[in-house]
């Protein structure tokens, strides 16, 4: 993800070290008990730095600059702090940090944000330093109090000890004194061989509240006097309201008001059902003059037309055209069409606005870029930015959906809040239909591939043309369109990758693993097909095209070993393999499939090997691989957002935008390559290989290559 392009400045490592930030850990109506996630202990928490607070009850609260939506930063960042602090895991807590683009910047982006599988990668040293700093301050405080040399003090499992005097204490007793110590500028970090917490499967800090129903998401915030608002949106992208009749809607019990907003017609009510019923009662005439009125089929024709035009060059080595003309080669040509995909997180987009007595506003939402949300809301609410506090909440998934430049969702939510005015708190929520039909999809793409392979398995030429929207809204080459293809891992002397940017009124967005969602599929199915033409084994053939010592090769060999690749699968089944690097992590997967009773692939088992450098929490890494496989598999098998005749969005909810279900989830085995490399992300890299692994198995089983996704769209047609 070239989210890294935003402002590639690398800021001071611990910008907030020693800074006491006077934030309340939880708002008034969210007592620690009601969040279900232990939000610090009782009493006043003392800030050691911008990331670590210590309570009188010995609890250590880590302020997570990254949003927790299931990928594990609460646990991961707290582990890094606890390691260097020599804390006991039972005393660790985590909450979301306040919004501050400087203090809580993602060090890869230069502003606060979660994305690109970067949380652990960018915070690895920073959070360890935050822990080491706090430890040094606690030790200094104890040395002063006990009147002993700091060098003689040890810390282990949350206990501060001085062997000579026999003195011992928890952290809480020294929190106040420690907070007043001068923070060391460059605290010494542990040698990785001395880690006691990093690399172990510590239980997740957010599991309890997510098991007993007490975890609070944005939708669960219900202050006294809350208004709930929903917006009637168009069914065509680019349509705007021409006129509307709200007569019947206003008669619905509980409906308070109805307003025209830039995004549609907003219905405000005393409760959710009244708002929904009011919205259903609206009659709206839409102006389609600037709307997309072509169907998906018509768009495909338009996309494919670009194959014959000169594109934006991403890679060009050797001479592909000449190489393809050579005699005695096996050549393959393929076109693959990828549909629009909705992210469909379980919790649709929502936000809560609460005005304080001084006119400032608290916003509660699942913000991936809280600084953008703050800027956008301040502008729309006509307030200074410091009068708008974005309080990041646990989010029910995202998969990229909540990371948007210019915060278009917040533009809608804040516009709805601004339109009604007054002092009542307001919740703006999207329904599932709004979510499925709301755009910001993984764009539709068309790939054209041409390749040639000689009898030894050497691929001599590879041309790939990629047509689709630029996620970064670029006029020139967008690296998110070609990542994974332009930097093909296979050694090919003649390689050419080009792209074409398409402009549509359908807003695009990154979707879990961004460009690799389609390039991974195209590359890994095409290389498999080329190898099969000359009878090469998919694993051995790939290994021959990459360095034996590479991390690519490492995960590929491991996955093959786990699957016992050389052995024949059970009767009626076939296996496919794929390996993809994304976000600096390497993942290989072997999928074993059969033809299901419905004629579609039935995926029985997936073996997955991942190399993500130092494994901070192996259990979370495995969970992200399992989840990535399920998320990717559901999309590849079932999912497409399509525009029907006239451009109307076809799908509306989970009945026609299918998700993988319990009975369709394969058994998954995950192994993590032992590594001393710096940690890289795992939120996204589990996704790209599963599609091509399944498609490669499908071709082996049925002889039919997968040239259009989702797979069921080809089987049923």
């Amino acid at each position: 993800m070239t989210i890294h392009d935003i402002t590639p400045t690398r800021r001071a490592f611990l910008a907030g070290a020693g800074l006491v930030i006077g934030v309340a850990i939880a708002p008034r109506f969210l007592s620690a008990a009601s969040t279900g996630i232990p939000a610090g202990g009782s009493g006043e928490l003392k800030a050691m730095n911008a990331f670590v607070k210590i309570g009188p009850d010995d609890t250590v609260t880590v302020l997570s600059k990254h949003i927790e939506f299931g990928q594990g930063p609460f646990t991961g960042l707290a582990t890094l702090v606890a390691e260097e602090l020599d804390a006991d895991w039972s005393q660790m807590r985590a909450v979301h940090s306040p919004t501050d683009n400087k203090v809580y910047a993602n060090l890869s982006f230069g502003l606060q944000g979660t994305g690109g599988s970067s949380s652990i990668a960018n915070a690895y040293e920073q959070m360890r330093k935050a822990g080491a700093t706090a430890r040094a301050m606690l030790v200094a405080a104890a040395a002063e109090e006990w009147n002993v040399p700091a060098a003689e003090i040890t810390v282990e499992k949350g206990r501060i000890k001085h062997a000579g005097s026999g003195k011992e204490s928890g952290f809480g007793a020294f929190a106040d004194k420690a907070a007043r110590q001068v923070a060391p500028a460059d605290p010494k970090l542990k040698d990785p061989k001395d880690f006691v917490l990093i690399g172990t499967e510590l239980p997740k800090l957010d599991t309890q509240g997510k098991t007993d129903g007490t975890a609070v998401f944005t939708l669960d915030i219900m202050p006294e006097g809350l208004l709930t608002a929903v917006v009637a949106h168009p069914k065509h992208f680019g349509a705007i309201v021409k006129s509307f009749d709200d007569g019947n809607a206003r008669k619905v019990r509980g409906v308070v008001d109805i307003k025209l907003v830039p995004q549609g017609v907003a219905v405000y009510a005393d409760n959710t059902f009244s708002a929904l019923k009011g919205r259903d009662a609206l009659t709206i005439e839409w102006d389609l003059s600037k709307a997309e009125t072509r169907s998906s089929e018509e768009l495909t024709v338009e996309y494919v037309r670009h194959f014959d035009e000169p594109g934006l060059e991403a890679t060009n080595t050797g001479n592909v055209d000449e190489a393809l003309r050579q005699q005695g080669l096996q050549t393959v040509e393929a076109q693959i069409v990828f549909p629009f995909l909705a992210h469909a997180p379980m919790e649709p987009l929502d936000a809560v606005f609460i005005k304080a007595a001084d006119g400032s506003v608290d916003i509660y939402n699942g913000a991936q870029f809280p600084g953008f949300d703050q800027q956008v809301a301040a502008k729309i609410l006509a307030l200074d930015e410091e009068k708008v506090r974005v309080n990041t909440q646990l989010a029910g998934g995202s998969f990229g959906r909540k990371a948007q430049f210019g915060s278009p969702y917040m533009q809608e939510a804040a516009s709805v809040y601004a339109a009604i005015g007054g002092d009542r708190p307001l919740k703006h929520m999207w329904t599932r239909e709004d979510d499925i039909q709301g755009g910001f999809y993984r764009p539709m793409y068309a790939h054209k591939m041409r390749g040639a392979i000689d009898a030894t398995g050497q691929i001599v030429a590879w041309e790939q043309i990629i047509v689709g929207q630029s996620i970064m809204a670029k006029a020139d080459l967008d690296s998110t369109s070609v990542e994974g293809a332009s930097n093909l891992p296979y050694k090919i002397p003649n390689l050419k990758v080009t792209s074409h940017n398409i402009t549509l009124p359908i807003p695009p967005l990154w979707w879990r693993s961004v460009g690799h969602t389609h390039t991974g599929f195209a590359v890994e199915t095409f290389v498999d097909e080329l190898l099969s033409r000359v009878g090469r084994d998919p694993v051995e053939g790939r290994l021959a095209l990459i360095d034996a010592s590479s991390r690519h090769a490492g995960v590929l060999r491991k996955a093959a070993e786990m699957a016992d690749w050389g052995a024949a699968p059970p009767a009626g089944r076939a296996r496919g393999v794929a390996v993809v690097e994304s976000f600096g992590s390497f993942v290989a997967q072997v999928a074993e499939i059969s033809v299901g009773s419905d004629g579609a692939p039935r995926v029985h088992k997936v073996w997955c090997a991942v190399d993500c450098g130092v494994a901070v929490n192996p259990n979370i890494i495995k969970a992200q691989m399992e989840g990535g496989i399920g998320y990717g598999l559901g999309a590849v098998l079932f999912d497409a957002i399509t525009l029907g005749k006239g451009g109307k969005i076809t799908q509306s909810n989970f009945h026609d935008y299918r998700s993988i279900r319990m009975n369709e989830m394969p058994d998954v085995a995950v192994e993590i390559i032992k590594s001393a490399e710096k940690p890289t992300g795992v939120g996204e890299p589990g996704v790209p290989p599963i599609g091509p692994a399944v498609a490669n198995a499908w071709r082996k089983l049925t002889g039919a290559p997968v040239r259009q996704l989702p797979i069921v769209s080809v089987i049923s047609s």
Partner: protein
Amino acid sequence: MVTFTLNGAQRTFDGDPDTPLLWVIRDFEKLTGTKYGCGVAQCGACTVHLDGMPRRSCITPIAMIDGSDVVTIEGISGKEAEAVQAAWKGLDVPQCGYCQSGQIMSAVALLQILPKPTDDEIDGAMAGNLCRCATYHRIRAAIHNAAKSMEG
């Protein structure tokens, strides 16, 4: 006026009789463990127990439940509930966690009926509960673990 019991306490509702049970539980009773995910009984995030059986509260009009007994994630108890919640914690099943109240309500109901379910029976009972994080692999293992823990 609709009268029902919610987690053992008698409650009444005199609003719009079409209001789905989900929104009565959340907006009027302020119990937020039960989630909205689709509104059309396709995802199971809103699953509660209605007279002991799992029920999608998002499509259950409040008028239909007069005299019924409703239990939500906040009110579940008994050996199946304890075993399921312990097993969920043991495997750190939740990721984003949004669907998990519904998953747990379906799993508890399953074990109340079938104390030792097979994989097929788990598929049958749980296929109506979506998890976009795809924690299914661990949900299945946790249900088996819970069943095992109840044997002794």
